[in-house]
């Protein structure tokens, strides 16, 4: 850790400590409430240092928490005062599947306009290359490998969603791939750098600002914001404000930081609508239950149809890259090379 980074950590640590309710650290070794994965001995302190590329979003989070006087301290006995987000929800598709909420068009019956994200030159070039590949019919989606969408793309996905709120933790579930985010609101900090690793849906901590859930997320795995949308790097972090605007609408205001992919933070707004269809239930999503999609030699997606016989060459799958497109592999390899150069060639 260099001196500047240490100084930054110290400032953040002091700021965080100032916002942590008295007793939080005492609770970390005390008895816990049952019924949640928050009920574990692992609860990193709120001032746990995290890498410098997350500092911009963390500082915004800390400021927001200070403005909310440390957050609204819901407990089991005040559970009734928490917002009621029960029921089923689904992404409002009236604006399409896009991540870029300011982009014109919906991609359905109105063509999408130019992307509004302020991309870095490398990520802009990769995005343009992706669009050229898509136009030529070569597009692959990691969902076809039965992998999760991963956060933040997860925000854009359709299908049924559900919120499970407890004072210590919120689960936000999407039926697709049975993919659930866990947002810890028990005052803990992020997982320490020494033991942290990339997670499909990141490491999320949060607090309640009255009826609004504020969430800070780091440690995502690089990916794309959605098909025909840009890519994001592992250095991506986000700050979200999730709240109900009316009985049938929940809004997530999201700001994204990505030092490798974005020149300036990207602010988008996601909207989710209540679903009341008879018989609608979130089911275990078994992707391989009916998945006959394969990747062709040229990189496009194709079906195997009934009666067809296909010979597939199955090679070793590098867990870090097997699901990526050629353009993504190149882009994320450049990220690594960039990091390596910064560290003087040492991994």
């Amino acid at each position, binding site marked *: 850790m260099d001196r500047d980074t240490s100084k930054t950590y110290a400032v953040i640590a002091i700021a965080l400590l100032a916002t942590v309710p008295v007793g939080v650290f005492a609770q970390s070794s005390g008895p816990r409430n049952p019924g949640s994965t928050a009920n574990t001995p692992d609860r990193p302190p709120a001032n746990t240092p995290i890498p410098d590329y997350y500092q911009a979003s963390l500082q915004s989070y800390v400021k927001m928490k200070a403005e909310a006087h440390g957050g609204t301290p819901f407990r089991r006995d005040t559970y009734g005062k928490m917002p009621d987000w029960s029921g089923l929800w689904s992404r409002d598709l009236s604006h399409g*599947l896009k991540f870029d909420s300011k982009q014109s068009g919906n991609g359905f019956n109105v063509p999408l*306009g130019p992307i509004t994200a302020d991309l870095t030159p490398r990520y802009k070039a990769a995005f343009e290359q992706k669009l050229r590949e898509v136009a030529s019919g070569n597009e692959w989606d990691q969902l076809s490998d039965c992998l999760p969408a991963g956060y933040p793309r997860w925000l854009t996905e359709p299908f049924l969603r559900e919120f499970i709120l407890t004072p210590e933790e919120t689960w936000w579930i999407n039926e697709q791939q049975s993919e659930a985010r866990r947002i810890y609101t028990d005052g803990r900090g992020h997982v320490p750098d020494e033991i942290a690793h990339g997670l499909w849906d990141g490491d999320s901590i949060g607090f309640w600002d009255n009826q609004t859930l504020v969430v800070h997320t780091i440690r995502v795995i690089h990916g794309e914001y959605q098909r*025909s949308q840009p890519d994001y790097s592992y250095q991506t972090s986000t700050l979200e404000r999730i709240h109900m605007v009316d009985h049938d609408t929940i809004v997530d205001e999201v700001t994204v930081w990505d030092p490798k992919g974005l020149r300036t933070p990207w602010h988008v707004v996601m909207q989710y609508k209540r679903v009341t269809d008879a018989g609608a239930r979130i089911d275990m999503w078994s992707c391989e239950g009916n998945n006959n999609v394969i990747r062709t030699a040229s990189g496009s997606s194709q079906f195997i149809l*009934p009666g067809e016989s296909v010979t597939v060459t199955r090679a070793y799958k590098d867990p870090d890259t097997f699901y990526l497109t050629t353009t993504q592999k190149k882009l994320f390899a450049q990220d690594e090379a960039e990091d390596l150069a910064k560290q003087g060639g040492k991994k």
Partner: protein
Amino acid sequence: MTIRTFECYARARTAAAAMGIVLLMPLNAATAHHSAAMFDHSKKLTLSGTVKNFQFTNPHSWLMVTVTGTDGNPVEWGFEAEGPSTLLHAGILPKSFRPGDKVTVTANPMRDGRPAGALISVVTADGSVYRTMPGAPPASHPPIPKE
């Protein structure tokens, strides 16, 4: 993964041509777990046939329909639709299409001519119309910058 052979490819392509596919104007794709690039969203085809089965499941439902070609031979067509929750929202139930039902299907065809497509609508013998995507699905991408 690499596709090495598609044994039925040529046969299916010929069958599609023989059946006199009706080509109309665009508007379809799906909120899918895969690229929609294999479908030709600039075209629609309409076919009549008999339901073989309806796979009401995630990640995608498939309506399998036996269609008789102009040469008199039956061809099994597959029409991809959304998973159960999206279909329920569109009013399509697990038993909406039963084996043996006579149906007329409209879909975006495969670009390569094989007997499959992205399901748009189904008309059953009693005149009921089922549309899979009430809001109409994604087909476009942002403008492509020149190299």
